[in-house]
């Protein structure tokens, strides 16, 4: 068996899987067929709901992949052949010729600047922008290595030119590269090949052939500041600002005849986001969203669409689109549509049309399926083995993650990717850490005392001509060399090359340097490289300082060589000043107790517990009730396969109960949680009302959610009505043998969104209710085929790929009437006939009132947070969101983590979700937690904050402001002549502190400073800048 994994596809799914896998102890080969990782997320402008710059939050992860010594990054590679079996796959990979030596190219861009070939459309900009024939897909591409397009390059096609080879100072150009075959052995394979977006494939009625009709990915590039129009909202035909922009949803989706049958799941939300961003970019633009219905089922999704409407004046129109045509001279578009609210046919003139077109499995999915010998489903996605375990492909040892298996949004993808990493780790657990490299330094660290005179070495990088052309490097060298304490200063072509690393080591040793500075590109990508080089030469890595004279000087001051040079001198002088005050910092290690506490014994908690236990760690599972199984215990049949719920859950309960690594506490509650990552002391009150103390390494919160019980509906008190009940109560009734009552009923009405998506109270959509309702329609009809079922709905909120077909089948079983929030159904109990109701509803499709007589009414009420979460959140020191669910660290990229290290969440504790997603999250959370359990000990950073106890007045402002809960107040006693008193002092937990410095900035008495960035070090830089003469 191999301790390594092949990940195919370098989008966010592949990136997250790879990063988690290395932390779980496995080497990763990450194969990406394009020249850079990043995938679709790198192309997006902003991500909702926070409207963070998409690439800004993704790029750090891309860099992490790039720097990870245990990830072999194989971009511009493709998988050719796979043989073998789980644990021992032999994979043949094709290395496509970049015509550039990856190890030599420094990404300086000198080649592209001189490449004479006319520009061609850039695929990264969805062909709206331009690139040369030697290019890098986008500035933040990882790896930062150029590639030659062999179809366009004059040298490769006609054997003329060759300019790039002449200008490349790194001698990285190699026109003779050929396709290479590489053989690797891996234990498992993860497929994360993502999606493409329809464009030309659309039916002609969507008008995609017109210049001013773009699909949403193209529009993302238009919005993006680094896109083809530098972030100005312009339309392609004349590059003028459009005044009226029409966003058309479901363009080609959910269309069995001309398009694709399923819902792509993410379009409603990105459309709302794009409309909001558009409004932010240009105030004059009017945005119109042509929707059929809104599917906003995720955390705060529905509220986000309301914000678009109410705060940003985005117009939502409920429509069906007939066709889109272009007006000849103006290139404006006429949209012919039916207004579903008014029932009339209309036309609408827009300057620009943005189509939310279907997202489909990326091109080549079928070919890859045959190479991997795995199945694909009727939609063209890879087929999951089992609808509850979506990450398993049809072949053992090959896993699926991300969009390649079905529509998912980014947080779902990230959670799913962590889950897959965890599953792979379980499969290969006997081989973990067998192929992982760990860095060992040969030269021991030399002692540098504060009193020693600083001996500073400075290296200034030309980066080819990337810096050298815009900054007069030799004059900078001359200037820096004469600064006090600078013992040596030199320039070089590429500071990051391997010979430069040797040179740095040689300088540190030969010249007995005790500080080192590199002035080159960004510390984000290169600081750790240089720090490691310093460590190799025996210099503490905190005695290294980096200056970014590329982004700060040559890039932003391209046309001002003198100013750029002066600024480079200023910046390096400041770093020299700071470096004198640098202090060697120690990184401590912290032991991790290899046990996990799982709070909640529902499907999420059990899945997470099993996953961790299967990796060999002790798990304590605490359940407040007597029985394991959570809400699943009350369910009857499961969507979509109609398996019996008990058949599904009982074997899992049995596995948990019989697992020798899992200890279950039933009827138990948590009394107290103390400590921090790796070292929690948890006190549990067990079923005998005894306190049990547990030593815990990490905690998983899986407390689930519960169904809302309504007391009133449209003003009628329903508490005592036995024939009005919720879906969960229906499930409980169905589970019993006695079902005669269904056979007797003639007509049942289901009211969806009962108590959900309201203006007050529960404002959100609770995700699962539509699906539950549809499932129960089928169950009821199977029992009593003559039963009439009427469904009153507002929007149908379900986007799993199988849903659309399932829904279409149900339309034969029930009558669907659509109501709006402002005209909610009215309910009246019939007095004459016993136990029957009449309901009046305004059907927006018919545009008329309908009166329904009904024997029974079933309410789909939302899921709400469990009781007692506030108290638990307080003990865990983690936050809740405004709806009362637990709040994750980052909605997009850290959906399973809390900001506080060591605590993770999954399932309905985070947000109402179905069984599939709960399982997927639970595995993800288990994987995230296992990274720490695996590690046995973790390194604390040297870059943390430090409290001067004498100065601290214990005001507690730092405790409030710390985003990581790393500070607490401890009591100390003080005795004075006039009084003895207890005084609070703040104390920083090195394991949790991230060195962000918020506390230091907040402390009113200046008692806190951040090591390596203390106030003296910062002040001296400011002084060095402002008071040039004194330095």
């Amino acid at each position, binding site marked *: 068996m191999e301790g390594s994994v092949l990940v195919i596809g370098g989008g966010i799914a592949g990136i997250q899987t790879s990063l988690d896998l290395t932390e779980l102890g496995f080497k990763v080969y990450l194969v990406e067929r394009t020249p850079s990782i990043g995938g679709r997320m790198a192309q997006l402008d902003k991500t909702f709901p926070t409207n963070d710059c998409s690439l800004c939050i993704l790029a750090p992860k891309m860099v992490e992949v790039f720097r990870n010594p245990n990830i072999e990054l194989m971009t511009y590679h493709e998988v050719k052949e796979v043989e073998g079996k789980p644990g021992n796959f032999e994979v043949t990979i094709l290395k496509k010729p970049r015509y550039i030596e990856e190890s030599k190219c420094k990404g300086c861009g000198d080649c592209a600047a001189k490449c004479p070939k006319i520009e061609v459309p850039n695929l990264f900009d969805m062909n709206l922008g331009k690139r040369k024939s030697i290019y890098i897909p986008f500035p933040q591409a990882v790896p930062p290595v150029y590639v030659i397009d062999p179809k366009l390059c004059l040298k490769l096609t006609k054997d003329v030119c060759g300019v790039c080879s002449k200008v490349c100072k790194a001698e990285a150009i190699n026109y003779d590269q050929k396709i290479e075959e590489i053989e690797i052995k891996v234990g498992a394979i993860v497929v994360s090949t993502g999606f493409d977006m329809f464009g030309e494939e659309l039916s002609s009625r969507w008008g995609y052939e017109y210049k001013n009709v773009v699909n949403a990915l193209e529009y993302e590039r238009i919005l993006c500041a680094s896109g083809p129009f530098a972030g100005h909202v312009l339309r392609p035909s004349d590059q003028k600002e459009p005044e009226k922009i029409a966003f058309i949803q479901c363009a080609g989706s959910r269309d069995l005849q001309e398009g694709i049958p399923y819902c792509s799941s993410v379009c409603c939300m990105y459309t709302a986001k794009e409309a909001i961003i558009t409004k932010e970019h240009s105030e004059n633009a009017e945005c119109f969203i042509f929707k059929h219905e809104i599917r906003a089922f995720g955390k705060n999704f529905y509220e986000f669409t309301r914000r678009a409407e109410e705060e940003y004046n985005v117009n939502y129109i409920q429509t069906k689109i007939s066709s889109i045509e272009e007006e000849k001279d103006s290139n404006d578009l006429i949209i012919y549509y039916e207004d579903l609210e008014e029932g009339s046919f209309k036309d609408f003139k827009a300057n620009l049309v943005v189509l939310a077109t279907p997202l489909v499995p990326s091109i080549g999915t079928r070919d890859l399926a045959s190479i991997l010998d795995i199945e694909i489903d009727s939609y063209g996605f890879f087929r999951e083995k089992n609808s509850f375990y979506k990450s398993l492909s049809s072949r053992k040892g090959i896993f699926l993650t991300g969009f390649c298996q079905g529509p998912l949004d980014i947080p779902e993808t990230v959670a799913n990717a962590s889950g897959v990493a965890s599953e792979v780790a379980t499969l290969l657990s006997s081989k973990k850490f067998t192929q992982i490299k760990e860095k060992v330094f040969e030269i021991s660290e030399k002692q540098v005392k504060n009193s020693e005179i600083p001996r500073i070495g400075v290296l200034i990088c030309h980066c080819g001509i990337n810096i050298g052309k815009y900054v007069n490097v030799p004059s900078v060298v001359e200037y820096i060399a004469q600064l006090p304490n600078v013992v040596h200063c030199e320039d070089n072509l590429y500071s990051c090359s391997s010979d430069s690393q040797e040179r740095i080591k040689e300088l540190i040793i030969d010249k007995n340097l005790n500080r080192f500075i590199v002035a080159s590109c960004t510390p984000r990508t290169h600081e750790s490289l240089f720090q490691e080089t310093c460590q190799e030469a025996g210099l503490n890595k905190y005695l290294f300082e980096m200056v970014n004279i590329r982004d700060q000087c040559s890039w932003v001051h391209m046309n001002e060589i003198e100013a750029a040079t002066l600024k480079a001198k200023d910046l390096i002088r400041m770093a020299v000043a700071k470096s004198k005050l640098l202090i060697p910092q120690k990184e401590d290690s912290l032991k991790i107790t290899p046990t996990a506490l799982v709070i909640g014994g529902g499907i999420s908690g059990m899945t997470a517990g099993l996953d961790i236990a299967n990796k060999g760690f002790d798990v304590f599972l605490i359940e407040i009730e007597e029985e394991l199984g959570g809400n699943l215990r009350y369910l009857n049949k499961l969507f979509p396969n109609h398996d019996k719920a008990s058949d599904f859950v009982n074997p899992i309960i049995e596995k948990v109960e019989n697992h020798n690594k899992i200890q279950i506490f039933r009827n138990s509650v948590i009394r107290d949680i103390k400590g921090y990552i790796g070292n929690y002391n948890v006190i549990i009150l067990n079923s005998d009302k005894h306190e049990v103390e547990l030593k815990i390494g990490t905690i998983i919160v899986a407390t689930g959610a519960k169904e809302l019980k309504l007391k009133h509906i449209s003003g009628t008190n329903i508490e005592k009505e036995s024939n009005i009940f919720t879906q969960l109560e229906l499930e409980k009734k169905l589970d019993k043998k006695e079902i005669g009552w269904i056979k007797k009923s003639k007509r049942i009405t289901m009211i969806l969104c009962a108590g959900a998506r309201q203006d007050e109270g529960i404002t959100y959509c609770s995700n699962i209710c539509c699906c539950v309702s549809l499932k129960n329609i089928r169950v009821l009809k199977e029992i009593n085929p003559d039963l009439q079922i009427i469904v009153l709905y507002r929007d149908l909120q379900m986007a799993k790929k199988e849903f659309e077909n399932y829904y279409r089948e149900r339309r034969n079983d029930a009558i669907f009437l659509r109501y709006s929030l402002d005209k909610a159904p009215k309910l009246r109990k019939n007095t004459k006939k016993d136990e029957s109701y009449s309901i009046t509803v305004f059907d927006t499709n018919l545009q008329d009132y309908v009166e329904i007589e009904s024997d029974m009414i079933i309410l789909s009420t939302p899921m709400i947070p469990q009781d007692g979460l506030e108290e638990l959140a307080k003990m865990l020191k983690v936050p809740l969101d405004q709806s009362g669910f637990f709040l994750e660290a980052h909605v997009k990229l850290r959906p399973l983590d809390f900001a506080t290290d060591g605590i993770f969440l999954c399932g309905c504790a985070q947000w109402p979700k179905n069984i599939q997603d709960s399982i997927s999250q639970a595995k993800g959370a288990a994987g995230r937690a296992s990274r720490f359990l695996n590690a046995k000990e973790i390194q604390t950073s040297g870059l943390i904050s430090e409290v001067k106890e004498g100065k601290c007045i214990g005001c507690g402002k730092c405790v409030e402001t710390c985003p990581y809960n790393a500070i607490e107040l401890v009591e100390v006693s003080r005795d*004075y*002549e006039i009084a003895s*008193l207890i005084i609070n002092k703040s104390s920083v937990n090195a394991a949790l502190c991230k060195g962000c410095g918020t506390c230091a900035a907040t402390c*009113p008495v200046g008692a806190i400073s951040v090591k390596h960035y203390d106030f003296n070090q910062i002040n001296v830089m400011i002084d060095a800048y402002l008071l040039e003469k004194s330095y």
Partner: protein
Amino acid sequence: MLKITQIQNKMDKDSNKKNLDYYLNRIYNSNLRNLLNKCYQCVRCSGVCQLSKVQKFTPSRIIQKILEGFEKKVLESGVLWDCLMCNSCLQNCPEDINFADVVRIAKWKMLTEYNQDSEGLVAHKGVYTSIAEIMSNLDVSPKRNLDWIPEECEISDKGDVLYHVGCLPFFTFEFDNLERISKSTLEILSECEEDPIVVLENEYCCGHDLYWGQGNLEAFINLAIKNIRNFENSHISTIIVSCAEGYRTFKIDYPKLFDNFSETYDVKHIIEYIYEKWKEGIISFIKPEKMDFPKKITFHDPCRLSRFLSNTNIMDQIRAILNHLTEIGLEFYEMKHNKENSLCCGVSSWTNCNERSKALRYKRLSEANNVASLMLTSCPKCIIHFRCLKDDYEEFSSLEIMDITEMLVNLIKINK
């Protein structure tokens, strides 16, 4: 009146230095020994020094060292930054040696000649003193937030009576409920006066903290000049303040700079104002319909209203009012240390809070707690620091702390 505006008209950036020297000479004396030479080491000062109760600090030893010629050593050590400047020593000095004032002078020396930095010693990292310093810049004119002004109070930028609000509105960014002091004061003034009260949108800081805390005399002088200019522009003759520090500054320190200041401007603390109106029969005190504060009260004398003001009888006026209030059902009790013997709140002029100053405050609150359930005072900084400490200690949970105006505004009836 000294023609300050006329002097100022000439004062541009070039002549600034000369002007500065002119004023500096009035409040600065570089020869510390001369100021101390009457000392005969009776060491009373060190015995009463409040700071010495919580840390090593002996004024008499410091004086002795300076007299023996070790001024440089003393100033270099920075020990003088610790002085609370509470004036307890002066209170007990047989030779009237004003140690606090010597410390103030020494601070300017430490700043200018020793390049010492008061930054680490100023509370809240110098945010509030920085606001004052920025205002002292001759090119800067503040535009202050006047949102706190109650609707029923009409204000003007010209008139007879000026209410100098001071730093209060700035503090509300960080501390709660302080605007109640300025609101109460303005309400009382507006009811008593016929004409609108002058409240200036471009009001400058009085400079107290720069004068005492940082020893930044240059900034203080600039602020004083700017203030005078404002006063002249708005044609006022009476200056009302509601804080102890501002009162001391306008009453004692501005006249040192400007010869005719005291003759031109009638400086009154709001308590003094209330006392006078009460004696004139304009104000009387009535029992309010609802008494929403404790009736057992005591008064904490801020140092600036007691030990720092030898010539006023404001301490007695306060007591006359508080004793009178027993007629409407309140009870007034003195703390063990009161009037000029009052204990220090531990922090003056935004010097830094620390565990030692907490001990001082703890002691003071214990005294208050022993006799009353409402401690009144008339210094926003005392209030800020006492409230902060009170919140940390269970034993003071039943003690309320208020500015005297906050209470009086409920009891005052105007007889017109």
